[in-house]
């Protein structure tokens, strides 16, 4: 009985007067996470080992009994992919229609519920299971491609686009970095998540941007350089257990025609300029299947690989990608921060100091800038200390880029844990919205309905806590493993142990901050 009351009290924690939020991770689970982190640290510092054995091995899935045949068919033929693209485009068009013509109530409109509660949260979960499969069925790309090429799947003549090369200064992921920051500002600052109308307009704007990019530049420049969703998925994909790879690497080594890169008369070339035989990292692979469809030897298929092996061994450190990783880790934590009741108290105090009123956009912008600047500045400091400890052997930019790779699992694990909360607690109303996408005649959510949703999340609350705790420990463990591997590549197993220390402090600090965020009650968006 006492335990029941304790748990019940925890489920309605009230931090600030007037705010009731969903409960955070209970103390028991927090202790388990801390124990997991301590054990990982002890193991790493006690037994340094270079993480290389078996980390790069691929196992093709087409050899699996039963599912293998299906996967082979999926990789070779365009029909399944085309059908899936048509489905996502249909949903996308319904999102726009519902956003423009449906009810303005966010929790009753298909546009806001599907975009922000299901897709935006689910797309990150999908990376853990199917890598960048979302990019293959992305409705923005599919619609823009159909409109520009005026065909559903066959290769179009080159003159449908200006086919310009992307200017050298744009051949980075900095455009996607800025788009990511901009989208976060629109989402959390302007509150686009609570406006079906603005959600639909944002979808249309991104469609126009995708189309402009396809009309101006060769192949899919938008996917490679501009799309923040694609780059987020691309980076997280370094940790995914699935990837498109050659079945027989020798066959690729002998290949001189490179259909995967150039395409065939019917099949488009690789949209992001990748050559399958030389592919070591999946950051820019959109899983579009062009390589597997065009390969005359049917040598490209989905393969499984050890978790995080790409980040440990194969991912090439890049200055722009390193900054994208830092944006990811800071903005995912910032997402959590803005959904705490305590955020409102801070915002009030800052607004009072700077004289902000109305929607408090200046206050929000300041908070967002600070939330990005602090972890980034700390990381720069840690990289500089490591650089000094290493005797400045490597150029600073290179070491900085290498050190950013272990940060990736921290962003991914917290992103997943945070999104699970949204999906489980906000997804409850999805079925009603699917039945009435425009929300015709719907009223705002009543107090009784809000109560019902709180009492009956999609997953049992204890299971949700277990998953969140497991994700945090997993993220920390993977970050440390990647750090170990990368540092031993730079300095050898022995010296790597001391060189790792500053980064270990950073990784542990970020993990503890994310754990603290998960412990707090969370205010839902709708």
């Amino acid at each position, binding site marked *: 009985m006492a335990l029941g009351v304790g748990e019940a009290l925890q489920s309605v924690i009230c931090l600030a007067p*007037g*705010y009731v939020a969903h409960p955070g991770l209970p103390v028991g689970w927090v202790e388990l996470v801390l124990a997991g982190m301590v054990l990982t640290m002890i193991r790493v510092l006690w037994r340094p080992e270079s993480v290389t054995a078996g980390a790069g091995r691929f196992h093709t899935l087409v050899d699996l009994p039963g599912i293998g045949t299906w996967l082979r068919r999926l990789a070779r033929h365009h029909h399944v992919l085309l059908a899936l693209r048509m489905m996502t485009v249909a949903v996308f068009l319904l999102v726009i229609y519902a956003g423009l013509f449906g009810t303005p109530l966010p929790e009753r409109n298909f546009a806001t519920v599907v975009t922000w509660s299901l897709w935006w949260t689910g797309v990150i979960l999908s990376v853990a299971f199917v890598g960048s499969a979302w990019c293959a069925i992305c409705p923005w790309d599919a619609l823009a491609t159909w409109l520009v090429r005026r065909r559903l799947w066959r290769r179009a003549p080159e003159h449908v686009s200006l086919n310009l090369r992307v200017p050298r200064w744009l051949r980075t992921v900095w455009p996607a970095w800025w788009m990511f920051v901009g989208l976060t500002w629109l989402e959390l600052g302007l509150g686009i998540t609570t406006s079906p*109308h603005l959600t639909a307009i944002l979808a249309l704007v991104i469609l126009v941007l995708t189309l402009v990019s396809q009309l101006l530049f060769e192949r899919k420049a938008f996917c490679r350089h501009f799309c923040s969703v694609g780059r987020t998925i691309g980076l997280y994909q370094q940790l995914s257990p699935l990837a498109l790879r050659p079945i027989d690497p020798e066959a690729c080594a002998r290949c001189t025609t490179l259909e995967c890169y150039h395409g065939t008369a019917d099949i488009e070339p690789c949209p992001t300029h990748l050559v399958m035989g030389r592919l070591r990292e999946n950051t820019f692979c959109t899983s579009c299947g062009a390589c597997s469809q065009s390969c005359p030897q049917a040598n490209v298929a989905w393969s499984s690989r050890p978790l995080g092996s790409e980040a440990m061994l194969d991912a090439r450190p890049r200055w722009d990608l390193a900054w994208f990783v830092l944006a990811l880790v800071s903005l995912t934590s910032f997402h959590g921060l803005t959904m705490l009741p305590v955020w409102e108290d801070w*915002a*009030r105090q800052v607004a009072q100091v700077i004289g902000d009123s109305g929607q408090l956009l200046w206050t929000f912008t300041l908070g967002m800038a600070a939330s990005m600047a602090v972890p980034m500045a700390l990381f720069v400091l840690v990289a500089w200390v490591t650089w000094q400890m290493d005797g400045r052997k490597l150029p600073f930019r290179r070491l900085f880029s290498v050190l950013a790779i272990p940060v990736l699992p921290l962003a991914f694990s917290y992103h997943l844990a945070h999104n699970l909360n949204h999906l489980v607690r906000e997804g409850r109303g999805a079925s009603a919205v699917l039945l009435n996408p425009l929300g015709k005649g719907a*009223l*705002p959510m009543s107090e*009784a309905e809000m*109560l019902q949703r709180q009492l009956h999340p999609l997953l049992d609350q204890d299971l949700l806590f277990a998953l969140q705790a497991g994700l945090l420990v997993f993220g920390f463990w993977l970050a440390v493993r990647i750090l170990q591997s990368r540092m031993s590549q730079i300095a050898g197993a022995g010296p790597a142990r001391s060189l790792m220390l500053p980064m270990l402090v950073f990784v542990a600090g970020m993990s503890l901050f994310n754990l603290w965020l998960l412990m707090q009650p969370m205010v839902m968006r709708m």
Partner: protein
Amino acid sequence: MRRTIRAMLLLSLLPALASAHHVLGRPSYSLNEDSNTPPSMQVETQIGKYFVTYMVFPAFPQPGKPGRINLYVKRLRDDHPFLGKVRFTIRDDSWLASDDAREELGVQEPVDNVFRQGFVISEPGDYLVIAEFEAEGEPYRIDFPLRIGNPSSMGPLGITLGVIIVLLIAVNLLQRRRLARLKTSEYHAREEA
């Protein structure tokens, strides 16, 4: 048992739950099923030393139909309600609209600590309601967005379709010209050869 206790605790917090989804400065919609009040739009924000709650009835006012604004202002320091006068003005909220083109809705005194301002607006569109008051010798001004009627649905769709069509035609024309130029230069090259 656990669920029952949870439900009881949550029920006891129902009034607080109603404000659980309010984000500072952001409109939210609520329905109180225990009263006859229609759904309302509510914004909570602050300015200087005051916390302001602004409610619009109905939640989605229509052109030509009467609506009401309820404003509640309290001092952050001690939750003491502001009891002076509040002047309500309104203007068009389009990008090019000037702040000089304001129309006065009224000057209100509080009744039960709430400033109530009625309105009837005939033209649909985006408006800005400006509430102004003076407290402790300092002037305060708060801007609240007010949407009358439904936002234009065809506008964004039409603009997007228009932009797409113009872009597709422009690139098509450019490429045709480029191809024609290429053919001509190839022809001349062959002639010269």
